[in-house]
């Protein structure tokens, strides 16, 4: 694994005696998309605010490319693109003027680059209209554009797909994947939409009550689970047990650990044994189940 681009060490934030972030340590790597998962009020946005210098650390350190956010702010933030909660733009100006505004605060953002980003987020037609006339999703797209403007090496996105339509989310996901792979950008995405994190991220960090409670890689297809509905029940059960499949049963349905590429083989075997197959489908709820289990079913504490 390459060297981390971002390091949070023992990050703690206390406001008025309340510990919002508790001794949180985390490393983020180039080319990797890390999901930041947690129930409402867990401290995701607070962590993002600390990482971008909007809030001061009570203790601990955050470094980005070796520069401390507390002591060397301008250097640390120069390669960061960020969306914190809803991107609030200057409503009384056009989207384009907003981008000009932010581009002037970075080094070397050309007009061509602005046009390129506008095209990338699909706002070309409306970019010269006032932001006050934009829909929620369009504002979100503009927010993404301002975060990407200066070609950052590290992207922090707090609830970025909030308000995007399905096509928008899909494009967005593809685009994130593309810049992670091609430009080696490190991406940190907070969300409480598990399915989204599962689809989008390589790795997930789970936060609750300001504490990091879990951190793991997401193995997308190696450990996929399949739902199987087939009869007769005993025959299938015997076959699976005797062939060392890992499975459980639930109301006559089999849940088994099986990679996608092994599915045709299993079907062929079962058919050869005169088993009737009604349905085989992939299950994507592992992370969700784990998440609910870990965080206690979404109680806001």
């Amino acid at each position, binding site marked *: 694994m390459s060297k981390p681009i971002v390091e949070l060490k023992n990050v703690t934030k206390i406001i008025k005696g309340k510990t919002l972030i508790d001794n949180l340590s985390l490393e983020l790597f180039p080319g990797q998309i890390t999901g930041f998962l947690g129930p409402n009020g867990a401290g995701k946005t607070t962590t993002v*605010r600390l990482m971008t210098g*909007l809030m001061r650390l009570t203790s601990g350190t955050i470094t980005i490319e070796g520069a401390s956010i507390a002591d060397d702010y301008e250097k640390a933030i120069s390669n960061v693109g960020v969306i914190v909660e809803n991107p*609030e733009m200057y*409503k*009384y100006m056009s989207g384009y003027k907003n981008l*000009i505004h932010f581009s*002037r*605060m970075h080094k070397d953002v050309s007009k061509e680059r602005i046009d390129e980003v506008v095209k990338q987020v699909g706002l070309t037609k409306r970019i010269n209209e006032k932001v006050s006339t934009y829909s929620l999703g369009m504002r979100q797209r503009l927010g993404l554009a301002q975060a990407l403007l200066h070609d950052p090496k590290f992207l922090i996105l707090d609830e970025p797909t909030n308000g995007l339509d399905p096509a928008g989310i899909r494009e967005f996901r593809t685009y994130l994947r593309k810049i992670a792979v091609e430009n080696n950008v490190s991406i940190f995405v907070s969300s409480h939409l598990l399915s989204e994190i599962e689809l989008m991220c390589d790795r997930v960090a789970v936060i609750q009550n300001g504490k990091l409670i879990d951190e793991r890689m997401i193995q997308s297809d190696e450990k996929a689970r399949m739902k199987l509905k087939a009869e007769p029940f005993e025959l299938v059960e015997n076959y699976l047990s005797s062939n060392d499949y890992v499975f459980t049963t639930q109301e006559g349905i089999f849940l088994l650990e099986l990679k996608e590429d092994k599915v045709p083989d299993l079907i062929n075997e079962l058919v050869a044994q005169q088993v009737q197959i009604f349905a085989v489908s992939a299950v994507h709820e592992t992370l969700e189940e784990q998440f609910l289990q870990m965080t206690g079913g979404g109680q806001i504490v």
Partner: protein
Amino acid sequence: MFNLIQNEWMKLWHKKGTWAILVILLLVIIGVGVLDKVFMEEVNDSDWKQEQQAMITDANTQLQTPDLDEWSIQMYEEQKEMAQYRLDNNAAPQVNQSMEGNMAFGASIMVLITLLTVIPGASIVSQEFTDGTIKMLLTRPVSRFKVLTSKLITIFLFGFTLILVTIVLTTVIGFILFGTATGVDLTIVDGVVQQTNTMKDIFLTYVYSLGDFTMSILFAFFIGTVFSSPSIAIALSMLFLMMGPMIIMLLQKYIPVEYIWLTHSDLTQHLRKEFFIEETTLFMSLAVLGVYAIIFIALSFMTFIKRDVKA
């Protein structure tokens, strides 16, 4: 820094309120000029020499009166001296409105210009907080110190722009409507008759009005930055600007008001030689204002740089 000021300037002029401020100022300047013209009764004073002669005769007659009080004596003596001066130097009196008069009017509305600058001054920081845009502004490779400095400079640029507009417009409108002055005004300084230097007076009025101008803007900026509420900042600064002398009178009994900036911020006191409280030197006034200016600026910067941004 230039980029940041350019940004602030762009945002300022994209707000409708800014244009409203400019329109108000233009209406006042043009309106007063036009009204002056419409209601002015042109006085023909081609025989001013006879009039001045008559004034001398009149003053002499009055001075014959027995038991005349000292104040009247002085008045008639001065009347005589001035009339004599006009005859000796062929200096006709200025009886009609003139370009110079209209320019002096311009200098007298510095209070209005100050009020109009206080409004964006109070909101240039606080509105970023109420709109939530502050988080977009502060997550850039630019220190908070520079961001705030650019905002402060922009507001003063705006104020000076309004002053410049006023100077140019009152001059142009004055010239078009009234033409340049045909006579001179006289004053008596230390018993000697002198021609008033109108241009110098106008210039000094502008310069001395910068006291209230600077202090009000700094105060509005400070309150707007610390409390992130434009309305409180606008209300308080307007109150202090308009009621400053009254507040000072009220406080006089309880605290040493000579150390309050409101006592000194109207520097035209030194021009008029009329003081709210007691006479002070210009140096003393500037020193007090300087200290408060530093306090306002320092507190603005300290809170802005330190604060946690939750927007």
